[in-house]
């Protein structure tokens, strides 16, 4: 329990309705997906309940966040803020910690239609933002975590691949001005916002403080609280009078596909041809989506229930599917559509591929077009066992992604043979390219059973093996190389980078109150 006077001080900031220390309420913050994996990796018994915060506060403004953070410094209370809060990194690690739930800060502050950016608060979700942007003919880059998660979290704090990445890039690269409550409670405003209240760039004057803000992975909430962010927007390729419209009943909705949209699943017998095609399709900017998964994954992408997905697998999908790219040509005009679809066909032919949709192997319904652009397809992987998690994650080139996929297969197969993870014959991966093919990343979504201890331990061991593989073979840094211990594991082969992180942490969080569990502890921590 927090001391009475400390609790009262927090109460004074947010009001009685917006603070709790009830254990049951706290447990809904201690419980996180993948706590069982991180626990297993630490040698603990796998379970979803992690560390319980001492209190949860629900601020409604930046000023309230600032007061909370200052109070944490004053009373030596650790804090972790989150938006929707999904995953162990959202939870607290210190027994003397509070959780800052940013749910009440949920406004879209501004949409600058011309200069193509939106200013958002933490609890605006991807689906919400997207639905408000159509009238401007715009869309944003939504992270793969799903439409119900917060774009601010991804843009300021957490990785950032998405299904539309070839067209909309990577979250970290789409951030403009930011409002940021530093770990000591000062409010930092980045770039032009600090200067003139306009959000169009977060860089300068001179150096860009985005350099300490998040890096590639994000600080996972370990360096203060982001209260507003301007993020870049992109053209939504549909006519002005088009509206997001669904009809029908769950789970088989219908959706109005805009004109000039066409999905493909281009399939290539060998990785070599796949790789060449992926490079060329990405470079030529013909597709909004360039996603690769396992044949089993394809079964889940374009079905609406687990039963249908399994039936599709056993109906022969696997035999006809090799290395494929799910693509969405989403053009603005007939002319653009004609060019792109022709080029897709030529590239497919050039590398000896075939289109699994044209051949009837898989059939995306109109609603699957909608699910694709609403970033819902990743969620389909949860259907198999209510749970999956991804390993690897290195991000550089398409060729590295392919090599990673190849080297991953035998390792994954080992754990499939043990019966502890889902059987995708070791082929379960996700590859996407970014920024018209300038980058790519590969991760390996893997199904496991969170209610089965052996499965949790098995998945955790598989992830450890993957981390080791990437380390040994210079295959980039996996997503979850965060937190002091794990950083140390990678430090030597990566220029001792954690030393710099620790200095940044020390300089901006001298009291060490911004939860360091998925970032680092600072060198100058006074505590």
């Amino acid at each position: 329990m927090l001391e009475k006077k400390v609790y009262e001080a927090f109460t004074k900031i947010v009001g009685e309705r917006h603070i709790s220390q009830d254990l049951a309420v706290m447990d809904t913050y201690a419980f996180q997906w993948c706590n069982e994996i991180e626990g297993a990796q630490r040698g603990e018994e796998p379970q979803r309940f992690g560390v319980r915060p001492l209190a949860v506060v629900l601020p409604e403004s930046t000023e309230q966040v600032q007061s909370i953070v200052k109070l944490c410094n004053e009373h030596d209370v650790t804090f972790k803020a989150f938006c929707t809060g999904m995953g162990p990194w959202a939870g607290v690690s210190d027994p003397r910690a509070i959780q800052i739930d940013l749910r009440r800060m949920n406004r879209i502050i501004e949409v600058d239609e011309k200069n193509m950016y939106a200013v958002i608060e933490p609890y605006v979700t991807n689906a919400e933002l997207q639905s408000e942007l159509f009238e401007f003919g715009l869309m944003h880059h939504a992270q793969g975590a799903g439409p119900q998660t917060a774009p601010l979290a991804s843009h300021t704090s957490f990785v950032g691949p998405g299904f539309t990445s070839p067209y909309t890039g990577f979250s970290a690269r789409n951030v403009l001005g930011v409002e940021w409550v530093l770990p000591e409670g000062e409010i930092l405003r980045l770039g032009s916002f600090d200067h003139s209240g306009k959000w169009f760039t977060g860089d300068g004057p001179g150096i860009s403080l985005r350099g300490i803000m998040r890096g590639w992975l994000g600080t996972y909430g370990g360096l203060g609280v982001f209260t507003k962010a301007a993020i870049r927007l992109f053209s939504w390729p549909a006519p002005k009078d088009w509206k997001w419209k669904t009809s029908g009943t769950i789970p088989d909705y219908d959706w109005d596909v805009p004109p000039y949209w066409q999905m493909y699943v281009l399939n290539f017998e060998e990785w070599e041809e796949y790789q060449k095609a992926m490079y060329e399709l990405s470079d030529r900017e013909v597709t909004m989506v360039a996603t690769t998964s396992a044949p089993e994954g394809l079964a889940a992408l374009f079905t609406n229930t687990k039963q249908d997905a399994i039936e599709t697998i056993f109906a022969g999908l696997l035999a006809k599917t090799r290395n494929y790219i799910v693509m969405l040509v989403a053009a603005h005009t007939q002319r653009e559509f004609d060019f792109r679809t022709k080029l897709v066909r030529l590239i497919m032919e050039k590398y000896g591929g075939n289109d699994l949709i044209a051949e009837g192997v898989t059939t995306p319904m109109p609603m699957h077009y909608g699910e694709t652009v609403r970033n819902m397809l990743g969620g389909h992987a949860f259907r198999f066992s209510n749970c999956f998690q991804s390993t690897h994650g290195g991000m550089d080139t398409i060729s590295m992604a392919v090599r990673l996929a190849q080297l991953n297969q035998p390792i994954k197969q080992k754990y499939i043979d043990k019966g502890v993870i889902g059987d995708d014959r070791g082929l379960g991966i996700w590859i996407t390219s970014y920024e018209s093919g300038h980058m790519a990343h590969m991760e390996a979504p893997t199904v496991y059973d969170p209610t089965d201890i052996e499965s949790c331990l098995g998945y955790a061991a598989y992830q450890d093996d993957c981390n080791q593989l990437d380390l040994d073979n210079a295959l980039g840094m996996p997503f979850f190389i965060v937190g002091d211990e794990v950083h140390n594991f990678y430090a030597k082969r990566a220029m001792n980078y954690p030393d710099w992180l620790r200095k940044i942490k020390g300089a901006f969080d001298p009291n060490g109150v911004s939860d360091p569990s998925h970032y680092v502890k600072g060198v100058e921590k006074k505590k």
Partner: protein
Amino acid sequence: MTLGEFEDMMDSCVRCSKCKFIPQLVIQSKRFSSICPSIDYYNFHAYSGGGRMIVASAYHKGRVELTKEMLDVIYSCTNCGGCEVSCKWVYELEPNEAIHELRVAAVEAGAGPMPKHKKYIELVERNNNPYGEDPEKRPAWLTDDITTDESSSTLYFVGCTASYRREEIAVATAKILNSAGEDFRLMGSDEMCCGSPVFRVGDEKKAIEIMKSNIEQFKETGIEKIITSCSGCYNMLKVEYPRFVEHDIEVIHTSQMIEEFIEEEKIKLTEKVPMKVTYHDPCHLGRMAEPYVPWEGEKIEVLSQVFIYDPPKPVRRGAGGVYDAPRNVLKQIPGVELVEMERIREYSYCCGAGGGCRSAYPDFALWASNERLEEAESTDASTLVSACPFCGTNFKEGIESRKSEMDYFDLTELVLRSMGGGK
């Protein structure tokens, strides 16, 4: 089921927050993206479908005790089932069912339900209705021009709210039945509460007693068909009763009955009712009205860690609710223009009254009705229509509190008006 039987399910929540929103594909605006009045009002994660599953899990594992605040968490849920519709888009989880089991467990532990609930349960036991009204006055709404036939095997089960609070619905229903020439009987002062308010707050033992007693009464009086004008009663009789008490009585809702009458030309909607209306799907007539289909079979591991059910297990997603009947009826009323809200059918937003919230958490219930009314107003409709007296009561209060210019009518009232007031 017991809470223990939900353990795997509770442990499988990934805390993704989908349960807070309507199914993601159908979101059309930020304003109306939510599905859960409780999380919207209280904001702590514990007040969402997933949050309550975690609370249930924590309680089951002995991590927490039933504190006052935890009881608030458990009981400030309208049990509307919205969370479950959104969750099942992806997961094989049943948060709404788990919440119910948690309430049952709270009652078994002697902590639940809330004092206001206990009070109305007492009233149900004493007076056969939760309002504490005189059982003898139950049929007081009956007017002289309504004909009933006590020998009929068709029962109009009026329900407590229409009997005592929203008599106009009872009157309209009876008059429509008369106009259609359909014989029906009433239980009159012998009508007993359907058990919904008792069941929903987790007093399953007493609720089952009520169910049994009711079914016994129905059987004794030779009832073969029940018509309800209340979504809550409909849900109990049609969906919940068969889980606990065997019966083969046909149960239909007034909206279905009217649709049938129109189709069979038993009634004619001739009078113009010039108004732009929007229709609110009551949770208990909508997603919660989908029956449980009994299933027997086995769980087979078809791929490592991936199980399916043989034969396929029916999934109660909310698609099987009564959605089209009320709309079809509205569309046939001359002069009525039906415009839809953003949240409809299985992803309709709850009015806020259900699950015992209107009695124990009136501020919350009123706030939720205001939320829904704002959505109704955003359609530019002049009138909100629904098919549940309990929703109606909450909406009427909401309309008054926000000084809305909107009118509220039950579907039966508009039908009666279009029939020229009935026979």
